[in-house]
């Protein structure tokens, strides 16, 4: 079927000819669930895993208890559902492990998967692919062999065309430009698509709570930000401090002091990023009412603004660059929100307050509200989609 398969490196499975003959599975089919349980054990045992916290986190996601928890969450919603058929995934190039989550959730929803992994040679991809290959080669899971195909190929409209033409569901990661590029390849009329556009995130901190926080907060915040060079769509770039001015100031001092101490051990800023961060601060200074808050070094760049608007997102910069805003109430948060805002992470008892704020103000952004430290935790609810339901078909019965 594929006209130029020589450009495609098949990491796992095969580019089968009879795509049409793969039958969808029901969501959370027993075989698939136990497959992930076994994958979790293999990943945890893998000698290289411990060097990669993202592989460990994926293993943790796959473990039996977690999958079982997910299954229970969907109980009563999936009885009349089947997967859509063949899913085709374009994974982002800079986050090695996303491909695995994309595949996992599509498989749990009942689909066969063709996944294009990052073309960069990430060790994490080799580890996960190796474990999957090993399982599919076993008699226990050979029935799933037709359901998992992992491929790598250079940017190619032609191959995108081919793979899009046979899929029932297309999943595009990698942000606006990748979405735009892949959308040049037409989908069959009945197929649908899930796209992960460029997003930006913020955090809301209860200043009083932060004042009495311990170093665990710095660790959690690190995982949300610097662990992915503050460049994941869920990494906060804007921090909304909630409290009286003087308390916010003290809380921020305390907080950044802890984060800075943590970073000294864990993170270093590349020279060009150091210049980028300074340039971003200058850009904001030229255009907005703001103040650069001096820091001892370039690990953390702090920019305090005095009003919030959706265009602040333009001034973001990866690698530890934070726009901060102090206020006594949440009201001003509405001014920041645009459809590009994805995650609000919070510290303090703010979950319910934030939820009702989004609903009451009928905000057209904010898809996730999660505690600090959890922004990167993958879930089947992502970016405003319920992926299990989106990736399956519901049969109506009267």
């Amino acid at each position: 079927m594929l006209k130029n398969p020589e450009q495609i490196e098949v990491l796992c499975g095969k580019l089968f000819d009879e795509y049409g003959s793969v039958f969808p599975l029901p969501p959370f089919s027993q075989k698939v669930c136990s497959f992930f349980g076994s994958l979790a054990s293999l990943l945890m045992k893998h000698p290289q895993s411990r060097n990669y916290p993202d592989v460990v986190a994926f293993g943790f996601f796959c473990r039996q208890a977690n999958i079982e928890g997910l299954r229970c969450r969907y109980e009563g919603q999936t009885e009349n559902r089947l997967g859509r058929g063949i899913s085709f995934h374009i994974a982002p190039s800079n986050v090695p492990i996303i491909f695995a989550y994309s595949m996992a959730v599509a498989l749990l929803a009942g689909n066969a998967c063709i996944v294009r992994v990052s073309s960069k040679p990430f060790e994490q991809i080799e580890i996960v692919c190796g474990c999957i290959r090993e399982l599919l080669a076993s008699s226990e899971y050979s029935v799933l062999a037709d359901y998992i195909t992992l491929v790598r190929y250079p940017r190619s409209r032609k191959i995108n065309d081919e793979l899009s033409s046979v899929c029932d569901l297309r999943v595009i990661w990698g942000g606006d430009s990748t979405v735009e590029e892949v959308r040049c390849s037409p989908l069959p009329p009945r197929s649908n698509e899930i796209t992960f556009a460029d997003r930006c995130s913020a955090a809301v901190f209860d200043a009083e709570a932060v004042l009495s926080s311990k170093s665990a907060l710095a660790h959690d915040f690190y995982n949300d930000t610097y662990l992915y060079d503050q460049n994941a769509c869920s990494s906060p770039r804007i921090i909304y401090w909630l409290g009286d001015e003087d308390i916010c100031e003290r809380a921020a001092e305390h907080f950044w002091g802890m984060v800075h101490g943590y970073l000294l051990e864990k993170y270093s800023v590349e020279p060009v990023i150091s210049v980028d961060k300074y340039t971003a601060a200058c850009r904001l200074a030229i255009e907005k009412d703001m103040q650069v808050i001096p820091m001892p070094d370039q690990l953390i760049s702090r920019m305090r603004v005095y009003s919030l608007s959706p265009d602040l997102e333009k001034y973001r910069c990866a690698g530890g660059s934070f726009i901060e805003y102090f206020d006594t109430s949440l009201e001003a948060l509405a001014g920041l929100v645009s459809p590009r805002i994805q995650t609000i992470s919070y510290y303090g008892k703010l979950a319910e307050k934030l939820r009702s704020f989004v609903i009451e103000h009928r905000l057209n952004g904010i898809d996730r509200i999660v505690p600090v430290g959890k922004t990167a935790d993958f879930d089947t609810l992502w970016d405003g989609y319920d992926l299990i339901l989106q990736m399956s078909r519901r049969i109506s019965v009267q």
Partner: protein
Amino acid sequence: MIENFNAFEPYSLTSDEKRRLLTRELLVLTEHHKENCPQYANLLECLGYDPEKICSPADIPFFPVRLFKEYDLMSIDCRQVFKTMTSSGTTGQAVSKIFVDRETALMQQKVMVKILSDFWGKQRLPILIIDTPAVLKDRRTFTARGAAIIGLQVCAREMCYVLNDDMSLNRDLLDSFLEKYKGQRFVIFGFTFMVWQHFYRALLESGKRLDLPEAFLMTGGGWKKLESESVSRDDFKKALREVCNIGHFIDHYGMVEQTGCIYAECECGHLHASNYSDVIIRRPSDFSECSIGEKGIVQVVSVLPHSYPGHSLLTEDEGMIVGEDDCPCGRKGKYIRIFGRLKTAELRGCSDTYAESF
């Protein structure tokens, strides 16, 4: 005032004198740009600038050079713009726009002449340009290549463009130029890669050998392209000595944002800061000043930019101070090495487009 500097030979000030003069002049310039360039004033305010705290050129706030690509920055009325210089960028890339008034343009020329005459003497020399006259076609928007050539014009008795529009070497022109100035001093000027590709290679292929011990080969534009072909600076010099027996090599570092204040290479192979400008190398981790011999990010200060806020710039180049006031060539001031652009970063992140986003 710039006159304070003109009284001196271009490389005569030792560190203490220079620091005193530069600090004073840069403070005046900082105030001038603050008064006249609103974007610059905003930046100073957000950085909490306090002139009382400025004790040396290194204390003057630095402006990221990239912002000249994003904003039209000028400290003059736009009717006073005499010419707009642009950096040479590949198609589609943003280019720096530098707005120059008559006064600044004049100072740029004067300083350039003064610096170069320290190398090849006070008289104007004939210059063989390894480029095509087409590089100057639109006289109102100069590229860096064009700007460098125009800057040289004031030091030239005659300029001869020796490349055809298709970049082939015009042998007849070359021969008649060499015939005319046989046995005399003259300058060959070109961007490093152009000299290599269109002059050296053309000569090599033709089998022709030249004997030019009186010639000064002045190059600029960096070494990245040649290094990517595994040609080092030494290889370059050796090759050109072999084919043309070039007597003197003057490489230089400079940028369109600080035209005039070039850092020219002395006989010892060092790039020198003149009285009119200086280099501060900064540690990427906290922007503190590097010691001599320590690599870091290059900041350049210059007393020339009056019409635009370019008197203190943070570049994206990596460099090092080799020494100060003690180069065996006798020139005072800092002498430096430039290693080229800072390496781009491989960031993690969800969006595939980070590199292009700004």
